[in-house]
């Protein structure tokens, strides 16, 4: 009988209150064991305070071929960045 444990993606939130970050993946039979395995595999050096796991198969991802349509249009929206606006120095810090 061959029943490979499913693959899980692991997300860890570090000490400093930042977002959970993808750190890698591992195999586990269940979510409960995936969290335990993640604790043992990915926080050996005191890396985290919170763990998320999600089945790799359950992740929906954007297609590389969509890269242009998805991301290039935002290049043109320069007005979303603060440097777009010229404010005289006399106004002070803004």
């Amino acid at each position: 009988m061959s029943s490979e444990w499913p693959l899980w993606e692991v997300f860890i939130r570090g000490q400093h209150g930042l977002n959970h970050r993808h750190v890698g993946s591992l195999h586990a039979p269940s979510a409960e064991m995936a969290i335990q395995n993640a604790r043992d595999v990915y926080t050996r050096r005191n890396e985290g305070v919170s763990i998320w796991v999600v089945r790799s198969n359950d992740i929906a991802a954007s297609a590389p071929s969509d890269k242009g349509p998805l991301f290039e249009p935002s290049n043109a929206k320069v007005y979303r960045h603060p440097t777009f606006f010229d404010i005289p120095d006399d106004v002070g810090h803004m």
Partner: protein
Amino acid sequence: MYAQMVTSEGGKARDEMTPEERAFQDRIDRGERIEPKDWMPEGYRKTLIRQIGQHAHSEVVGQLPEGNWITRAPTLERKQILLAKVQDEAGHGLYLYSAAETLGVSRDELTGMLLAGKMKYSSIFNYPTLTWADIGAVGWLVDGAAIMNQVPLQRTSYGPYARAMVRICKEESFHQRQGYSIMMTMARGTPDQKAMAQDALNRFWYPSLMMFGPSDKDSVHSAQSMAWKIKINTNDELRQKFVDQTVPQARFLGLEIPDPGLAWNEEKGGHDFSQPDWSEFYEVLKGNGPCNAERMEARIEAWEDGAWVREGLMAHAEKRAAAHAAE
């Protein structure tokens, strides 16, 4: 190295390439990272699976020669350090298998190929660890050689592989130091200890030089891998760098590198040194090294004896999921 003599597939001249292949090569030349869902030539994918798989297998088999001494480590602190270090190797194997899995091969498939003798692992782990000083020599020389190869691989073109190498390099930084620390203690210890340290260097020197693989300056496989940036330096470059780095470290320990031909060459700004016995290297790769049989037996046993555990836990998880769905 941990991945030795990887046969690479592809190797087309630019004018023979399809437009897709040309665009792919251009991305690599611009220093872009290739990600799992991106288009890639089949040769690139296959070569990477072979290389990352071999690298992962080396980490896992590499647990054995050092693990051999965990139960005999001479102090509680040395025992903990060694255990943590060998545990890291398992972690590195895991990270690398994960990187390979993004290329469409499963960890179990890769393991199956290792156990069937269809994939290789580094020749170095087929040498025995006979004394406690060998644990020092393995950390100092073997990890030292590995780091030499792994640091540049952090810039390799395949994203998941590069990210695994970043994590591995960060964790490995203590491995070589722990080995050298054992060597320092032994070299400054009793006459017995110093003799053990010298003996360990004598036995591990040439096998360490073999880790980089035979000269590949004329190899087409290496040329293709370098064009794809899954190999960053030639074997000879890395070996030279390793020798130049290690010679003063040995001198500091008061130990002698077992090579009468070793001499500083002012002109090239590096050491001249003797080549290892490459016929021995090929024998070890063929499976005839001192510990090939034992290493494979240990891995096969772990896999077969563990089958009921993997199946039992999976069966339980499925029962739970079914019960949950029925609620």
